[in-house]
């Protein structure tokens, strides 16, 4: 497995700060806005952005975690059922401006499920999408992010892994390539 670094810890931090600034630019004081991270890995992006924004705005933001397991379109098309994670949204999103947050935007199917799952909590005024890494050219559905940390061009056989200080020990984004026999 060939491994290449897409973002090192310095760029990782800069990217997060830029995303936070972009969010602030569009949502100002977050009066009517909520941030919702998609389980399982989107919540790490959410937690970091929340930390940066709350320090900046000096007030708590309304944040939630959304699990989309039961809304997926690949149920029974996978070998193993997916074990759901926790959904933690203790507010109604009726008329709110929602920012959906995920770590990697790939086929767009997770986001489609996320939009479905979101409707169970009310009718939002507006939904935006923030993707830390956007693997463009790999989309199966017409879905684009409004905020992008970094865009990468990848093959579908490659794997992008966003790693976190809190979990893997280091902030970085890696690209794994399966080595072919001829190479």
């Amino acid at each position, binding site marked *: 497995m060939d491994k290449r670094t897409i973002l090192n810890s310095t760029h990782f931090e800069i990217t997060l700060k830029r995303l936070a600034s972009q969010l602030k630019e569009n949502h100002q004081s977050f009066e009517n806005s909520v941030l919702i991270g998609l389980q399982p890995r989107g919540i790490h992006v959410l937690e970091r952005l929340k930390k940066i924004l709350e320090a900046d705005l000096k007030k708590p933001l309304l944040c939630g975690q959304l699990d989309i397991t039961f809304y997926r379109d690949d149920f*029974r*098309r996978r070998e193993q059922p997916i074990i759901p994670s926790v959904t933690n949204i203790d507010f109604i999103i009726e008329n709110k401006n929602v920012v959906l947050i995920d770590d990697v935007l790939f086929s767009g199917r997770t986001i489609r499920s996320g939009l*479905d799952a979101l409707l*169970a*909590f009310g009718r939002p005024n507006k939904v935006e999408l923030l993707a830390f890494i956007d693997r463009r050219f790999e989309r199966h559905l017409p879905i684009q992010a409004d905020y992008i940390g970094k865009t990468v061009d990848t093959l579908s056989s490659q794997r992008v892994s966003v790693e976190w200080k809190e979990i893997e020990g280091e902030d970085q984004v890696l690209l794994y390539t399966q080595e072919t026999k001829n190479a």
Partner: protein
Amino acid sequence: MHNLSVEHLIGIKDLTKHDIELIFKTADSFKQVINRPIKKVPSLRDITIANLFFENSTRTRLSFELAEKRLSADVINFSASSSSVTKGETLIDTVNNILAMKVDLVVMRHPNPGAAKFLSERIKAKVVNAGDGTHEHPTQALLDAYSIREKHGDDFKGKKVVIVGDISHSRVALSNIFCLQKLGAEVMVCGPTTLIPKFIGELGVKIEHNLRNALEWCDVANMLRIQLERQEIQFFPSLREYSMLFGLDKKLLDSLDKKITIMHPGPINRGVEISSDVADSDQSIILQQVENGVAVRMAIIYLLASKIDRS
């Protein structure tokens, strides 16, 4: 392994401890779902489920039907009293007719022990046993254990549960014994000698004929209903006498030096096995059991449906 080890849910006897824990974990998520403003998820929208009830049931049938609908499955209902079974059709013929309508999963209650197993060996659809005679009632046992877990925490080691009442005629008792033992709890049965099966001790359960002693021993008491409809002869002199010896009232409950949890699988005969003030007290989790029943059944159907081969 994130999958059940079984293809059908016939009895708790076939499940592993891991299976039971997987069902509980999945049920946790569904419990969140059914407490939201919109209580429905689209997971099973291409699945058709038949509820075949060859025996009367309100609670279990409603609970299953609601669980199926919350998962967006298509549901057909069948009850024996209003069907061709009364015209002499066999079980296999009835079921094959229903399966010809392309059903993926069958939930069945039947008065004969072993009916669910018989069916699962002969049809392609997944089978969930919703009670087969006096044999097993696995979903009830799972929701009972789930309710205990909710109240007393994940670890069943050392938890003491007493099942009181008509053990001989109860499928709930047998499934509960298997389930609680697999999870590591200690189980006692309590009732009149005539209603305790002769060889039940071989399952490793304690036997007690005095209700007070049983209650002093336990953390949780599961009060069963006297199943008069299954008793072909009289097993005790009168309901009044049964109620005096094995009925739980507030006075007895309050005289214990600890707060035990009271459960009942329903339907309750108020004033027979349990008095009204006990059933409605804060120690009773009877209504939580009903709520958990939907979540647990959603989990079971979801996990079994994930094993249906679409290719």
